[in-house]
């Protein structure tokens, strides 16, 4: 199989977020980025598929600071090729990013190899649309499924399990090539020791491909960004840990929970 995984660092939301001077975006100076869960699951699923069905795994990302780290980590986990798309990428939002990625995927010719599977996260948290996958599928004219938790290729098609809600899931069959928004891999993402990532940095090479300029559809812009006002902030229970535990017992007994 010819598997592509598209990666991107995500802002770390456990860190403090501040609004920038323009009032319309986050203060980039204090934003910390980290690999996100869905991307790690997409890499894991790709490597599992390769282990089961053979083929190659190519990881690709638009150039952003520190993106090399996630590419090398993916190589250390079993990806065969890493590609960084460079160029004037601006702050490529979902649709623009999808167009750049589609351009790269189609560089080898307009038709992708018939055993191609493109994996990426289901959703992003840092733009208005929050979905690159469907835009990418649309740009490539390929079938698409999102919130995918199981992937089983067989004979020119792929069977996937999609999550709906309340634990209900659905099974879909897509002809290949296809784009899949991965929610969880079949197994928890593997851990690679940092030494293995360092070894990948020494032996592997990240290819760079000029992606050209970003074509930003800019259909609608953010007018104002702000932090939500907590409507009903929790009553905080304070004190030494033992005291806190005592107060919780009291609270539960007052509310007849115990």
């Amino acid at each position: 199989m010819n598997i592509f995984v598209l990666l991107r660092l995500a802002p770390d939301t456990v860190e403090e977020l501040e609004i920038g001077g323009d009032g319309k975006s986050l203060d980039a100076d204090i934003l910390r980025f980290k690999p996100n869960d869905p991307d790690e699951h997409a890499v894991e699923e790709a490597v599992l598929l390769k282990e089961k069905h053979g083929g190659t795994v190519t990881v690709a990302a638009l150039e952003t600071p520190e993106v090399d780290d996630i590419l090398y980590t993916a190589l250390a986990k079993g990806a065969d090729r890493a590609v960084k798309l460079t160029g004037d990428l601006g702050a490529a939002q979902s649709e623009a990013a999808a167009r750049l990625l589609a351009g790269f995927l189609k560089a080898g010719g307009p038709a992708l190899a018939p055993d191609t599977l493109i994996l990426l996260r289901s959703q992003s948290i840092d733009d208005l649309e929050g979905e690159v996958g469907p835009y990418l599928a649309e740009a490539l004219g390929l079938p698409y499924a999102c919130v995918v938790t199981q992937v089983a290729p067989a004979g020119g098609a792929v069977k996937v399990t999609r999550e709906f809600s309340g634990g209900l899931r659905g099974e879909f069959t897509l002809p290949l090539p296809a784009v899949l928004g991965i929610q969880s891999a079949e197994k928890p993402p593997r851990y690679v020791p940092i030494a293995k990532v360092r070894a990948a940095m020494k032996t592997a090479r990240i290819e760079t491909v000029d992606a050209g300029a970003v074509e930003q559809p800019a259909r609608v812009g953010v007018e104002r960004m702000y932090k939500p006002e907590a409507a009903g902030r929790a009553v905080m229970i304070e004190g030494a840990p033992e005291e806190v535990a005592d107060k919780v017992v009291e609270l539960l007994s007052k509310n007849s929970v115990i």
Partner: protein
Amino acid sequence: MAKPILMLAEQVRGQLSDISFEMLGLGRRLADALGAPLSALVLGSEGAPLAARLGLADKALTAEDPRLNMAPPGTMADALRQVIEKEQAGLVLIGATNVCMGVGSILSARTGLPFVNNVRQAQAEEGAVRLTSQMYGGKILADVRLGGACGIAGIYPGAFPADAGRSDKAPPVEAAGVTVTAPKETFERYIEPETGDVDITKEKVLVAVGRGIQTQDNVGMAEELAAALGGAVCASRPVIDQGWLPLSRQVGKSGMNVKPRLYLALGISGAPEHWEGMQGSQCIIAVNTDAKAPIFDGAHYGIVGDALEFIPLLTDRLKARRG
């Protein structure tokens, strides 16, 4: 007069989801403020009885075709595109749910209409609509203005009251006249929720563990606390993804919707997708080392501290009380 508003009703196995009524209430409010008509679209076979329940719409449209049952996003978007053209619709409301995920983006790519996802607030103003989108895991809000009230809004579940969308009236129902092109993606079958040993939707007390629980062994500690409280353990997605608890214990957007008397959230940040599944809990007590975790914005009681330290202290006290 502003262009008509169109909402996509969401159905799963012949049942309208709550989001349908949440969007209908919102759509009615915006339509009245803009002086625009409101249409509701129901996709899938046997849409007529569902359409009859959407009385707040000025008209309900059906597209009764089995290929539209649990249709993939491209197929739903194609049906919507045809109806938008026919009705000359301006604002389109779609649920920001797993079932409809992807529809807004594909529709936007095909129509050129702007798409704003995860909308929590919406106001009509002078022929335009102001939308507030939730970003960065619920930590940031972004205001966007749709000029001419034209665009696609993905409405976040639970952000608008469903009761505002219910009515005893029946709307006029028409066939939408949609031409369905066979989807490339074929829906094969439903996979029923795993019935675990415990049904967390029926438990009165839930001890919920998140990534902050750190190891599988610590989940055992939470089990002990749940036993002392006479309840069960449930979890956020990262814990389930690690395989530390079965899928039947997941709370949230993709998991279960729970409404226990007590929800003890341990090491859970309170991401919107988790909040969605537990917001109906009667009493929420959250323990988190991060004083700024969003969970404290919605919980009733909060404790800034180490859950791993808190769990045994509380368990010991509960056991001592029982003697």
